[in-house]
């Protein structure tokens, strides 16, 4: 039974190639944009997550504090769920970091001794929103001289600005992408509606004959629904594939541009996993689009005896 409907649906497509082309093109475009926007949203989320979890809080310790006090503070930081990656940096290590940072001018490194650098405890916060309360808490500790925040990014306000800007960009990507994909999805639905309605108008006689020989509404409408499903599946696969190939092609450049920031999943396997999930979701929406479009067109036809 399925094969006769499929054969009929394929026959419909073959006999009106331009309608099929229009439907396929619009659906391909919709799902190409949807795939690309999904990857953009994923990448920007990873970017924000990277910066949010990056901030290094450095608690500079007073001179002459005992190892036991340092160990106690380190332990209490490690047991705090808001804090991660706690690391003790001794005076010698601090000098080494300084020397490394000033390697282009070795004289600067030779003029200082480890004693001028304070030992410190460095750590990250699990989420940027915890930063202020953690800093306040650390500052109150007796062995802490001062607290520095994200030296690499130029200070607390600078990091906040970066994350705020990224959040805004991500929001725009999400909103703009959703609106664009939504508009394309509506266009696809309308195109499907028009094509299915035209098909039904063209096949009125055939449908009447089938009705007279006892075909159910389901039997009559099956090839029409199947045709819409074929367009949707084709559109999903093509849109997804073009986007996948484009991103695969651009991946080396993107990865090298962002350096250690993981804007794309690691390796082909991770990328395939991400695209696999996107494909599954898009197939679901594609089928939803096809079924709703064709059923809407079918229900608009007046029921006759």
């Amino acid at each position, binding site marked *: 039974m399925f094969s006769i409907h499929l054969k009929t649906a394929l026959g419909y497509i073959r006999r009106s190639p331009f309608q099929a082309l229009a439907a396929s093109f619009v659906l391909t475009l919709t799902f190409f944009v949807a795939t690309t926007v999904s990857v953009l949203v994923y990448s920007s989320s990873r970017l924000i997550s990277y910066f949010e979890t990056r901030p290094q809080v450095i608690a500079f310790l007073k001179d002459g504090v005992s190892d036991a006090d340092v160990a106690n503070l380190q332990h209490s930081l490690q047991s705090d769920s808001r804090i991660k990656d706690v690391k003790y940096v001794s005076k010698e290590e601090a000098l080494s970091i300084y020397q490394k940072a000033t390697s282009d001018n070795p004289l600067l490194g030779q003029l200082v001794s480890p004693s001028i650098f304070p030992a410190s405890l460095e750590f990250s916060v699990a989420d940027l929103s915890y930063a202020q309360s953690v800093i306040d808490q650390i500052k109150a500790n007796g062995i802490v001289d001062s607290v520095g925040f994200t030296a690499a990014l130029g200070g607390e306000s600078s990091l906040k600005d970066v994350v705020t800007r990224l959040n805004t960009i991500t929001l725009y990507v999400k909103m703009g992408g959703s609106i664009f994909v939504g508009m394309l999805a509506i266009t696809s639905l309308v195109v499907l509606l028009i094509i299915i309605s035209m098909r039904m108008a063209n096949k009125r006689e*055939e449908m*009447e*004959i089938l*009705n007279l020989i*006892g075909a159910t509404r389901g*039997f009559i409408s099956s090839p029409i629904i199947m045709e819409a499903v074929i367009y949707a599946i084709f559109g999903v696969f093509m849109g997804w594939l073009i986007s996948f190939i484009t991103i695969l092609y651009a991946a080396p450049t993107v990865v090298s541009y962002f350096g250690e920031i993981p804007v794309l999943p690691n390796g082909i396997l991770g990328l395939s996993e991400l695209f696999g999930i996107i494909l599954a979701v898009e197939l679901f929406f594609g089928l939803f689009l096809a079924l709703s479009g064709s059923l809407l067109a079918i229900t608009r036809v007046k*029921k006759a*005896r």
Partner: protein
Amino acid sequence: MIKLNKVTKRFGSIVALDNISFEVKDGEFVFITGPSGAGKTTILKLILGQIVPDVGEVIVDGTDVGKLKLKDLPSFRQKMGVVFQDFKILPERTVDENVQVALAVIGLSKTEWDVRVKHALKLVGLSRQINLFPSQLSGGELQRLSLARALSVNPKIILADEPTGNLDWQTSDDLMKLFQKINEEGKTILMATHNLEIVKKHKKRVINIVGGKMENKTKNQKSEIEPKA
């Protein structure tokens, strides 16, 4: 059994059928005759459930057709074979596919299609045209295909609406022989026609409709059943 009981059907101000009553017994071959516009096709449409009577009832095998719900109509129609004057063949399907569609409609397993299709096409003499498209067939062949499609579902009742209307005399005669043969196999046949030559040649019961009313005289009676008042 087909029974029309005091059936009246109007289309706006036009009375298509006026107080029509008759019965067709199982295995009978009955002609419905009358001039164009007399109401012959309306009777067949009522029996097929395409339209409902304004007054009276149409009973087919105990089912009141007028009271059938939309969802029950397909299964009701699947029990009947219909042959139309304008053939109503699916133009984009080959001869065998046209018959296969009817089998798919009744939900017959695909494994049985081949045997049924070949048998039906052999019966109507279209075995050689099995892969042709309707546009490649003559009028007589199209009508035989229409009959093959109707027969393939093995219906108890065959409704034929002017099946010889578009055919020459020889082709009509061949087709009528087929109907005769099918009737002898036990099928009930109700045929609307204005071809009086055919009616005269085949001595069957005739229900004559004129202006939507039944004429009380019968022609070429083989079995006489007076229309019920």
